[in-house]
């Protein structure tokens, strides 16, 4: 069923320049936010993208939609090369790829009514107008579980969870194929998170959406995703089926990440052995030579400090970037 990739990302790179000097700005280096990332997203699936602060997961989402101009690489969306499109072609394709932002407070214009926020994509792309537009807004508010009578209210009149629903309605307005969900629930309370995640799952089934679900909450990503990719310092270190990556994580970083997540069950928590990483994420402006995880990796050997490991398919559908991966497969 999931045979044709809707999105193919190849060697995607996004560097942000570092400038120094007050009057004469010199370019002194780059923050390598995304440094050569490749993956596919299949039609109708949810690909989860996890990583810690500063791992570049949000930048992947935004560059993929060309909200940032890429430094290098290629994104093929439904057989079109996204980065080679001109402006008007780009506008057309944007209809089909939308985004839900993290912060429901700053991503909605406080001076616009809910109706006009949700209608904005319809107007920009001249999809519908007049009575049909009003009907579409009603329908959109209805499917995200908001009362259509709220159409003339302003964002400040809503709670965080309701605002995130408005953001979802806006993303769905133009009937997209792909929705990038950039940490859509991390600013919400636990009981409200479950409401929004259930809504996203329902909508996916109903409308046949494809999600790139970006978050740092591993349990939530595992819950919603079909496949998961783990990012560390601008690179994907491992990608596999959600159960595969949880049961048999191959990359030491994924292993540590899985064991760091607290499990809400005291009996399980007591029994399990935790692998606790030392130190912090290195600076993406000056990543370590060799494997970029070598500063924190408990297994690192000489080769890890000299050569960068390649991201390869080590087992069917299971990709990893680690020199010592054979060792982990055997154990």
């Amino acid at each position, binding site marked *: 069923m999931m045979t044709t990739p809707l999105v193919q990302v190849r060697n995607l790179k996004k560097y942000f320049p570092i400038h120094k000097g007050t009057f004469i700005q010199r370019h002194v280096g780059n923050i390598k936010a995304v440094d050569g990332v490749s993956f596919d997203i299949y039609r109708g699936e949810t690909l989860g993208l996890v990583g*810690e*602060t500063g791992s570049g997961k949000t930048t992947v989402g935004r560059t993929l939609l060309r909200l940032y101009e890429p430094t290098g690489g290629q994104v093929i969306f439904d057989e079109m090369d996204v980065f080679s499109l001109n402006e008007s072609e780009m506008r057309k394709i944007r209809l089909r790829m939308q985004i839900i932002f993290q912060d429901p407070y700053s991503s909605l214009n406080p001076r616009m009514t809910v109706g006009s926020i949700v209608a904005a994509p319809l107007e920009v792309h001249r999809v519908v107008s007049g009575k049909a537009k009003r009907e579409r807004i009603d329908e959109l508010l209805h499917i995200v579980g908001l009362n259509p009578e709220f159409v003339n209210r302003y964002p400040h009149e809503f*709670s965080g*969870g309701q605002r995130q629903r408005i953001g979802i309605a806006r993303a769905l307005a133009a009937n997209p194929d792909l929705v990038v969900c950039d940490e859509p629930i991390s600013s919400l*309370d*636990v*009981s*409200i*998170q*479950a*409401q929004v*995640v*259930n809504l996203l*799952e329902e909508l996916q089934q109903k409308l046949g959406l494809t999600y790139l679900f970006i978050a*740092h909450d*591993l*349990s*939530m990503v*595992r*819950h*919603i995703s079909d496949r998961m990719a783990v990012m560390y310092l601008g690179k994907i270190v491992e990608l596999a089926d*959600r*159960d595969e990556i*949880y049961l048999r994580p191959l990359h030491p970083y994924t292993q*540590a*990440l*899985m*064991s*760091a*997540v*607290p*499990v*809400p*069950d*005291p*009996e*399980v*928590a007591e029994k399990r052995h*935790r692998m*606790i*990483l*030392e130190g*912090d*994420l290195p600076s993406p402006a000056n990543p370590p030579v060799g494997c970029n995880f070598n500063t924190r990796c408990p297994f690192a050997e000489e080769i890890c400090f000299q050569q960068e490991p390649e991201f390869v398919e080590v087992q069917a559908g299971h990709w990893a970037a680690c020199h010592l991966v054979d060792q982990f497969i055997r154990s």
Partner: protein
Amino acid sequence: MDYLLEIKGLKTRFYTDEGVVHAVNGVSYGLEEGEILGVVGESGCGKSVHALSILRLIPDPPGKIDSGEIWFDGRDLLKLSGNEIRHVRGKQIAMVFQDPMTSLNPVFTVGFQIMEALTYHQGMDKYQARDRAIELLTMVGIPEANQRVDDYPHQFSGGMRQRAMIAMALSCTPQLLIADEPTTALDVTIQAQIIDLVKRLQQNLGMAVMWITHDLGVVAELANKINVMYAGYIVERGRVKDIFKRPRHPYTRGLLGSLPRLDEAPGTKLVSIPGLPPDLIDLPRGCPFAARCLYAVEKCVADMPPLEAAGEREHIVACWRWEEIIEGAA
């Protein structure tokens, strides 16, 4: 059993222009020496305000502790003079705040900020305090502490700042450490480091810890007992194992159901709690959870249920129908 800390009928309110915010509405419980208590609940449930009330850190006005007693070490903290409470803060009860970015002063070195408590409470001179600060930073796992002691907070990463905050809190070996969402702003691998650190220090120093969080996973890893708070009330309290295995209150049950688990079976659907928490300015007369509760009946809307024993030792719950609900679910 004598408690280290005993709170009786604490009520804290904020008198704002919009109305009276009922943040804490009669909270009573005791904390034993060496115990780790997890206080869980969502934003606005009163978990932080109740902790700030213990140290009398509620901004007044608009906030006011309207009634209650907080017994610690044979004294009612609410009756102490300003000078007396200052000797409790940091010395006997220390607090670690949520945001390590804003709770350190950016214009003083980390070392200076740790030394401040040592010179004030312990009467150390500058040199003794500096040595002790280096010792503390080493203890919480800051590498090259003798150099890093002169760094400013911006030179530290988030995890290191939180470690420095913990070092500062532990500087006078307090009997009670209150940690208010200390890992919420941190990544999971750093969170695991901090939890591990606090567990180890708690065992070595034998202090009691109150860990305030919205993350039930963290509580399961760390705590002995849990208070579940909702709209300024404790709605359920008990030992960790009992609460996770046999939650009695519909809110606790909902909260546990709404959490995805890393070890869940595929296809599991999350149980969401419908609706929103009540407005604390306009609290309902009965049970504050009634409007969102699947089991609510007329009695729930009319009267607030008292906390009553829920079968197991030290397990108490505030729900009129908990017995019927668990029978129905079984």
